[in-house]
């Protein structure tokens, strides 16, 4: 039984990681320090639909792999930390008993946490390891827009997927 569970956990994590990579790489708007993308849609979807552990691993690993593949390898550790934390925090905030929808207050809080984590995370880590605070600050508006749009779309997609494919609730761990 434990083997079955392990296999399912690995399968879920692998496919969700691939989803994050595809969402990160398919729609890209170049900016001063890299690119804006749909990764937050995938991360918010995973956080709303699956548990904190899946959200942390798939979000962190998926965005880091996308950076490695796209030639932005220097951003991979930062993306892993920031987006992993983003997925984990959103999932922890909206986590509820099975079948119970998260309240509006929790969703708003999750949205604020999502934007704050991405914006402050990238600002702090990139000004510490890659550039300076002035250069890192230039990316704040882009990150705010990306995370806000990602959160709203992720929430919508999560609701739509739960309706279109109800067995998804059996895949969460």
């Amino acid at each position, binding site marked *: 039984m434990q083997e079955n569970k392990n296999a399912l956990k690995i399968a879920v994590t692998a496919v969700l990681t691939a989803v994050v990579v595809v969402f990160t790489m*398919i729609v890209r708007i170049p900016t001063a320090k890299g690119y804006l993308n*749909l990764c937050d849609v995938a991360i918010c979807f995973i956080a709303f639909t699956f548990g904190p552990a899946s959200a942390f691993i798939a979000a962190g690993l998926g965005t880091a792999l996308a950076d*490695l593949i796209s030639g932005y*390898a220097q951003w991979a550790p930062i993306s892993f930390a920031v987006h992993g934390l983003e997925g984990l925090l959103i999932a922890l905030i909206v986590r509820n008993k099975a079948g119970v929808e998260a309240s509006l207050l929790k969703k708003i809080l999750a949205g604020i946490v999502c934007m704050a984590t991405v914006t402050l995370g990238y600002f702090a880590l990139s000004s510490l390891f890659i*550039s300076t605070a002035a250069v890192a600050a230039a990316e704040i508006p882009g990150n705010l827009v990306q995370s806000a749009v990602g959160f709203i*779309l992720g929430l*919508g997609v999560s609701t739509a997927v739960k309706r279109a494919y109800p067995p998804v609730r059996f*895949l969460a761990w």
Partner: protein
Amino acid sequence: MNTSAYVAGHGWLYRFDPRAKILLMVLLCVFFFLPITLTGLALTVLLVVVVGWRNTGGKNIARVFLSIAPMLLFMLLFSPFNVRSGQSLWSVRSLTIITVEGALQALRLACRFIGITYVCTLLFATTVMGEIMLALRFWRLPYKAALVVTLSFTYIPFIAESFSQISESHRLRESAREERKNYAQRLKDLLPTLTSVLVVALRSIPNLAMSLEMRGLGRSERRTNYRSLDSYTHLFTDFVISIIIVTVLWVLCKA
């Protein structure tokens, strides 16, 4: 969609053991943050770029530079204003705009950024992803983590292809109205496409889980195993070379 940064070639970096290459990459990234002279840093970066050019070709080197060019521009334009102390380089009446220290710090940041970018890029440009995974296993990456990454790489093309097909079919239905839509409407229109892609991806999970069970995942006697990196026969030598390279650079460049 391209899922690999590998550039085919025959240079010496391709023959260097991937396990030693990872060590060298980490050591060089640490080296760029050590207290070293600006000239030493710039020459080290130049050396890395030349090695990259000799191994992966000028086209790849130019492509990487173009991808970081906007960031470099930002860095060189804005970083000098951060440092207010020191000798004035450019001033308007009594107001100092840029100091010598500020300009030097901007150059150091730019060199460091270029160095880290090329060191990381060269690892992935000269090593196939499978060998990087095997090298990471050598550096104690857990079996399940390596399996997740390997499986993800096999699923990325499938999901990307589904995305293209689904978005293409959605676009065919709405092509007449596309030009008049604003950004909000376009984002809203993405919802059905994203939902369909996610459902397609999620439907593949039970099959994948079943395949993993069939292959003996979690059992004491595994039916499959990772292959080894035995084709690289100079692991110890490559480790020593990696450490010598960074040590020599440190001795030559330390401030």
